[in-house]
């Protein structure tokens, strides 16, 4: 598994680079403000193929905002975003990020996200939630998609719920449906916002295994979580976000056991409390 | 079709008369034009129009219209004429009218037990007329009864006569000013509820109205109508509607 520190990542050159050597997700110098409040400040981040990166940090640090911008639900004010060889942002003369529709759509085919609040489609059954986008958006054959969906549902222990609608499911069941929905799109990158907030230990363990397998298959995984244990177990690399800046980054052991930043140390000390 | 540049140019319409006489009428205006018990359009004026067409070999098409749209319909040629107890007075300049064929007068209807006996008694009372009716014209015309109307407590308007008569009965108004035949139609059979004042508001005349510039067709219709007087068709038609207040006494179009 490749791991890279910020310094030595080249800006992807879309024109003639083969996609092979580029990180799956590449962010450089991203800034984002809500009104006068700067939520992300010069954030740089990469996730390689087959790598699991966790974003941790205190509440309000900007983790969800980062995910929203990565998934193009919101836009960085400035900075560069690329998925593999696909450069999503361009820039105007004042350095502000510009997004165009076509590229954004292409990028969306490369990632999936599991929302903190799931955002399942309430009028669709579980099966429809999972199969609709692959069939409609990607134009894949219904039979094939359904077979794949059934396998995914079985994998996440949802087989008996396939024909229920979301309002008939428990929190953990809903979260797992959301995971299936994202995976059914066969993304190259998958993000989780509060990956396991509604999952019990068994399912959390399942998730851990699942994430590992996805990574082994070459998927890039980005996780926002408050469960330090999970982050530590599941990630190849951890980024610590504080007040909109990445203040610490490294292997789980580097960040969790011997963080250099005193604020990170203070934060982590709480976990053992 | 050719674009009309003004009413003066509309004479071209006459040339285009294709043998179908489309008669515009207000179907809520018995006994001149209304819906009969058999569901067919019927009425004194419509019968006359039908007889004219029969004699000329034209196709007769009665066309019930929304009174608000009558001018637009006539000028755009959607209807050929308005033949519907259509008062000439006050409209002479706006239509190509035939000679008057019928005398009409406007009368006042009050509740049977009302203490109003003469027009003078209407002072301080509320009187209602249908909008754009002959009676309204009379009461608002300086040269006719505007002076009388000034003595009323109020001169109000209403959309249709049926409502007016019902409202009169329940005391909303003190009197209705209305065409005599319409008054007769509505009072007949309800003499213990309504009473028609003997004094009349005025006397006026009905004619058939064509669009300005369509005088040729008008003349043809008028001539035919006069032939119908001669051969007795008119008298027969009057007789048919006698019990609804139509009378030969009021007929005023002479034979040719």
């Amino acid at each position, binding site marked *: 598994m490749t791991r890279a520190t910020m310094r030595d990542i080249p800006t992807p050159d879309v024109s003639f680079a083969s996609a092979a050597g580029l990180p799956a997700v590449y962010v450089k110098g991203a800034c984002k403000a809500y009104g006068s409040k700067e939520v992300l400040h010069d954030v740089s981040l990469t996730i390689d193929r087959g790598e699991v990166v966790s974003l941790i940090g205190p509440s309000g640090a900007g983790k969800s905002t980062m995910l929203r911008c990565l*998934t*193009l*639900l919101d836009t960085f004010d400035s900075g560069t975003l690329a998925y593999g060889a696909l450069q999503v942002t361009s820039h105007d003369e004042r350095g502000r990020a510009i997004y165009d529709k076509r590229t954004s*759509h292409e990028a*969306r*085919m490369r*990632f*999936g*996200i599991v*929302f903190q*609040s799931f*955002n*399942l*489609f*309430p*009028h669709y059954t579980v099966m429809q939630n999972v199969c*609709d*986008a692959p069939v*409609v*958006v*990607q134009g894949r054959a219904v039979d094939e998609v359904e077979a794949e969906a059934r396998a995914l549902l079985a994998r996440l222990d949802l087989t008996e719920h396939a024909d229920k*609608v*979301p*309002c008939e499911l428990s929190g953990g069941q809903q979260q797992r449906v959301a995971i299936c*929905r994202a995976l059914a*799109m066969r993304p190259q990158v998958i993000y989780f916002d509060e990956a396991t907030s509604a999952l019990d230990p068994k399912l959390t363990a399942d998730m851990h295994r699942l994430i590992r397998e996805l990574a082994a298959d070459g998927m890039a995984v980005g996780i926002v979580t408050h469960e330090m244990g999970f982050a530590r177990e599941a990630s190849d690399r951890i980024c610590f976000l504080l007040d909109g800046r990445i203040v610490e980054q490294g292997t789980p052991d580097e960040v969790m056991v011997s963080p250099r930043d005193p604020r990170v140390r203070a934060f982590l000390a709480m976990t053992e409390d | *079709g*050719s*674009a*009309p540049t003004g009413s003066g140019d509309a004479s071209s319409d006459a040339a285009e008369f294709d043998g179908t006489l489309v008669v515009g009428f207000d*179907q*809520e*205006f*018995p006994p001149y034009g*209304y*819906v*009969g*018990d058999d*569901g067919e359009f019927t009425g004194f004026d419509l019968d006359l129009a039908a007889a004219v067409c029969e004699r000329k070999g034209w196709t007769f098409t009665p*066309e*019930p*219209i*929304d009174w*608000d*749209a009558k001018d*637009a*319909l006539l000028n*755009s*040629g*959607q209807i050929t004429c308005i033949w519907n107890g259509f008062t000439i007075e006050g409209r002479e300049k706006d239509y190509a009218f035939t000679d008057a064929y019928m005398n009409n007068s406007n009368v006042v209807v009050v509740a049977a037990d009302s203490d109003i006996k003469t027009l003078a008694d209407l002072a301080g009372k509320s009187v209602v007329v249908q909008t754009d009716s002959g009676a309204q014209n009379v009461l608002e015309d300086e040269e006719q009864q505007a002076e009388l109307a000034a003595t009323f407590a109020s001169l109000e308007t209403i959309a*249709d*006569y*049926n409502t007016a*008569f*019902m409202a009169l009965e329940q005391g909303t108004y003190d009197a209705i000013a209305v065409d005599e035949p319409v008054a007769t*139609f*509505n009072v007949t059979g309800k003499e213990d509820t309504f009473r028609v004042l003997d004094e009349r508001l005025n006397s006026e005349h009905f004619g058939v109205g064509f669009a300005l510039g369509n005088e040729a067709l008008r003349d043809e219709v008028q001539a035919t109508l006069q032939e119908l007087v001669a051969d007795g068709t008119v008298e027969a038609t009057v007789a048919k509607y006698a019990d609804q207040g139509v009378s030969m006494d009021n007929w005023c179009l002479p034979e040719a």
Partner: protein
Amino acid sequence: MFEMLVGGYGMSLKIFALTLLGSVPLGIVVAMGRLSSFRPLRWLVSLYISVMRGTPLMLQMFAVFFIPYYAFGIKTGPGYKFVAVIIAFVVNYTAYFAEIYRSGIQSMPHGQYEAAQVLGYSPAQAFFRIILPQVFKRILPAMGNEVVTLVKDTSLAFSIGVAEMFTTGRALVASQRSMVPFAIAAAIYWATCLVIEFGLRRAERRLGYYHD
């Protein structure tokens, strides 16, 4: 008398059905224009909605009926009356439906749009597969208002001479000097509305299988 009213009722129904057929789908298009991020389009659609809702349908019908002749000198045949009615009704009702759709569309939780967007649905796909089905559930009662108003608005068609049930009723009231034809007309309207309500209620019940 009853048969005469029923005769006119056929025309009422025809106007009703054709208007719905045109304006219910067109309303969606207009609502999307109203919510477009392209300013001039949004502005234009707002103007259209404003004029359509702001002026009486009767006058709109006059306009559609008379403008070909008075503005362009085109002699419209007798068949045009009905066409004009349908055009005016569709154009008018589309504006009302559009605003109802808008109220439904704007009340959808953000998360639904976001989920659809991330999954790569085009705006149109997201709209027709994810948003609209949920919107329909939300707006059914308000839609009922307009549909039921339309049933009765058919009587306006008489302004340009298309006689339907209520016109017949009115003529009968005049000739019979009685309100009974009105009462019967009202009963027929009501019966129609009951059928519509029944349909809407069934639809509501069928959509009750989920909530959010």
